């Protein structure tokens, strides 16, 4: 079971398992001399388009972590919001690893506006939003008498 790896040479045949849905049809994708691709073995249209794309221009969502300027949160997770061409991943990673992101960042904030047709966005808010402290609005710790009572040996 192997996926296509980049462009096939003209007149080739690739077998792969479709991952568009859990059924996992075994596809056969043939490419003729004029780069016409035909998909067989699929049960639906999604399988056909998956087969074609996977052989001609396989795409992937890329997720990675980018170094930050923070000691407490040394890296920030990012993603491409759409799948990009697989062979572009190395270039994007090299770009990301060369950066030092300044915190704070928010989930959804854009890091790169366009890379191979996708935006690169942060997937986590860093530093995380503060949680309301116990003792602030809506939650008072019990009074001193509780504390005194509990100081006895259990």
């Amino acid at each position: 079971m192997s996926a296509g790896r980049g462009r096939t040479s003209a007149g080739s045949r690739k077998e792969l398992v479709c991952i568009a849905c859990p059924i996992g049809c075994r596809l056969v994708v043939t490419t003729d001399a004029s780069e016409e691709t035909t998909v067989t073995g699929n049960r639906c249209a999604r399988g056909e388009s998956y087969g074609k794309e996977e052989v001609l221009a396989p795409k992937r969502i890329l997720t990675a972590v980018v170094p930050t300027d923070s000691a407490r949160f040394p890296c920030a997770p990012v993603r491409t919001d759409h799948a990009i061409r697989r062979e572009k991943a190395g270039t994007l990673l090299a770009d990301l690893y060369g950066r030092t992101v300044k915190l704070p960042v928010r989930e959804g904030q854009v890091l790169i506006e366009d890379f191979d047709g996708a935006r690169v966005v942060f997937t986590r808010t860093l530093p995380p939003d503060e949680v309301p402290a116990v003792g602030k609005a809506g939650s008072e710790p019990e009074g001193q008498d509780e504390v005194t009572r509990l100081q006895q040996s259990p």
Partner: protein
Amino acid sequence: MDTYDVAVIGAGVSGAAIARRLSRYRLGVALLERCVDVSFGVSKANSGIIHAGFHHAPSSLKAKLEIQGNRAFDQLQAELGFPFRRAGIVVAAFSVEEMKVVDRLYTQGVENGAPDIQIVGRERLLALEPALSRDVVGGLFAPSGGIIEPYRFVFALAESAVANGVRLLTSWEATRAERRDGAWRIVSSTGQELAARWVVNAAGLQADQVSAMFGAEAFTILPRKGEEFILDKGSAGPPSRVIFPVPARTSKGVLVIPTVEGTVMLGPTADEGDDKEDTTTTPENLERVFGLASQMVPRISKRDIITAFAGLRPTLPGDDFLIELSRKAPAFVQVAGIQSPGLTASPAIAERVKELLMAGGLELAEKPDWTPGIPHVQRTRDHAAWEVDRLVAADPAYGHLVCRCEGVSEAEVVEAIRKGHTTLDGIKYYTRAGMGRCQGGFCSYRIMQLISRETGLSLERITKHGPGSEVVRSRIGSRV
């Protein structure tokens, strides 16, 4: 160059005990350890048993020092605060032939002076240790036997020695020595030098190499490997006594040991070898150990295993201790072949070395201000909830659990780091963080962060047990 009265080579249980013993006198003492932390050799990888004094012939040095050493542990615990419990030792016999061996052990124990040692029949033995197989026919019970955390003991000995003026030099490996002007000039692998009028060779597995380095007696230390397997704290049917089988010729056999921490340890095996670095565990020995152990304690199950390790016994031909003044090299004391019962005998070994030094002419003037105790370590898990509150009020880090499986707080980890234990293993042995069910899966990165915060070391320079064992290679984004 620093000059000392005594340099002790090797900070295992022998060296640390000797250094502490000598720290009572007005002497300049250096304790030299080639690893990054004390106890990182044989002393961290053994069964942790305080033996009762019936395994060795009365004529042997082992027997004498074992009995003497055993007696010292209550006071040592009071002074140094390491975990120790006199759980009692039973030797289980499964046949009439084995009972004959038990009989011999009993006689030997009586002659050695093992306190309250008893020979017992089946009913009494099962009452003493209900986890035993019903197939036992009888055995031996030695109430003075016990269990300790060996590395905590060695850490405490070393701490006490240092508190009393001993200079501890870790990552200091002696490579060359020459006698000059009434003192030994010792050079380390990194080119550091010091001088010492007297040298004590307590170098464990490397005792033969150190002896040769000083032109002393030629002998060969052969490593005999012992594999041990640890079962989880919640495991089925743990015994309360240390259970021995009837001994084999060269080893005391595969034991079932309730450790003082609450886990169960099975082992050790005894495999002759020639590689002083071979601490591999093997599937064959796992099968063998579980087979033997479950014959004695039927409820033992492989399902409960959480980790395994191997230690190497530094053995000499004849298998007895070698503790004497060298006849070849001047001002040189040999402390070699310290395998079982070395841990038990260590207080007595220290005593004997002090006698040898005195007999050899070293003046021993007592220090009036020698302090036997060290501050006992506060551990969150040892305290009831309301006591923990007081700890937290003094230092909030006691309320922050870093190792959830063993209940170790940040304060304890920081204390270990500040005492010089800056490797994951060193902190593990000092605090138990990483020794529990998850074996560091949850706490490793937290401990690394604490080491980084306290020492300034960046994460990729933090090691498991010293240089070469860095945990991670690099940071993302930097050159790999």
